[in-house]
């Protein structure tokens, strides 16, 4: 089973919205990267488009369709009507309050307003970053929490002893890889994680150890035919990213 098979098998379930919330998020995320699944999901949506008409129609209560039309059109009309009024009111207030008698104070307030807007924009940007971090953290934790297999192997380098931990999530076909107990990679070198597949070793993420705490990476399955049969960790020259086979010392070699 290739990593993509799970998505291919669950296209109809995604369209039916029968996936669990977490699976649905994964699938939606995948659609952003996969033209084939996007095309197939669109086709399925079209083919099953009439299914909701299996229900019996419900005659609307008296006045409802009129309310709906008014609700849609009035909302737009109200915006059209109110927007110029609100703008005019704001301009008038600015002119009366600040422009005529207190031009200088108005300038100060305008500068303050600009500063506050900049602060708000910065806060928005920070919040977006925090939300992205939180989403990534939730994603990471979800893989760990629901991992079907956890593999651990002791590793050693230059007198240091650590461990490599792999949490495998069969549903999302993603792994969390945790390395701890090792010092930062020697200058000019990196800790390189590899997949062992039927068609050979496939380069994956670099693990960056700060010397204390753990180095962690979430990795997706490689896009190669055949199953993933294991994983490896080696030390590679930092400049050898174009090399597709390990060349440095092998710290871990795990076959499932």
């Amino acid at each position: 089973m290739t990593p993509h098979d799970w998505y291919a098998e669950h296209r109809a379930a995604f369209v039916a919205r029968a996936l669990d919330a977490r699976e649905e998020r994964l699938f939606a995320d995948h659609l952003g990267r996969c033209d084939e699944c996007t095309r197939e999901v669109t086709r399925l949506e079209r083919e099953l488009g009439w299914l909701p008409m299996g229900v019996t129609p419900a005659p609307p209560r008296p006045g409802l369709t009129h309310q709906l039309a008014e609700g849609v059109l009035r909302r737009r009309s109200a915006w059209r009507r109110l927007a110029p009024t609100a703008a005019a009111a704001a301009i008038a207030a600015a002119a009366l309050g600040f422009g005529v008698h207190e031009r200088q104070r108005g300038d100060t307030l305008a500068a303050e307003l600009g500063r506050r807007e900049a602060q708000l924009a910065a806060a928005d940007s920070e919040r977006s970053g925090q939300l992205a971090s939180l989403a990534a953290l939730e994603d990471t934790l979800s893989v760990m929490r629901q991992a079907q297999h956890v593999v651990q192997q002791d590793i050693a380098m230059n007198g240091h002893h650590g461990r490599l931990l792999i949490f495998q999530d069969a549903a999302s076909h993603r792994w969390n890889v945790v390395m701890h107990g090792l010092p930062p990679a020697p200058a000019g070198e990196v800790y390189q994680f590899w997949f062992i597949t039927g068609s050979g070793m496939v380069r994956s993420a670099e693990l960056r150890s700060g010397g204390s705490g753990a180095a962690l990476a979430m990795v997706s399955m490689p896009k190669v035919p055949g199953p993933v049969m294991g994983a490896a960790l080696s030390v590679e020259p930092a400049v050898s990213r174009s090399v597709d086979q390990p060349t440095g010392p092998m710290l871990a070699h795990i076959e499932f």
Partner: protein
Amino acid sequence: MPEQPLSSRGELAAVPLGVAGQSTLRERLLARDERALVELIELATPWLLGLTQGMLHDQDEAEEVVLEVFQTVWDRVGALGEGHEGLMPWLLRVARNRAIDRLRRRSRWRRKAARAEAYGAAGGTAVPFREPDEAGHPGWHVHESVHAALAALPEEQRAVVRLSYFGGLSHSEIAEQLDLPLGTVKTRLRLALDKLRVSLAPIGDWIR
């Protein structure tokens, strides 16, 4: 009884008439013809309401969803020209997705789903049989076709479709409801949807 059509009341006299030379509802919506929106609301509301009431079991909330759907249509009218999806399936899809989103937001949704299932188990169904007084309703022939396609499914597959497609339950929730292995639910739903895709293929859009 369905209410009197808006177009015959003269209450929306300010709404501009359709743009000359654009005959289909879709084309008129794309041209921002407000009367086309009114016509669409009259044609589609019973179906959208039937769907959302059946899913939400709450008339006020169902009407809110229907309003949101038409607001979406009007706000994103340009998207109507994209792809090949029919106008009515698009409305139904938006309505169903909104209803499912609401179901999942509810803290009490599990209780509602259980109630819906109890209703089904008691002989009721989210896919009711034809009611003669509805036969003259626009779009009724589509309902008959969909109903026939659903009726052709084995009962165990129909039950899974009912809970998923019309009840908004996920695989694992259906497995819990029906006390079935998760894999069985997935297989049944996949088989059912495969059959329905074939059965529903010949249906053409009745709103043009």
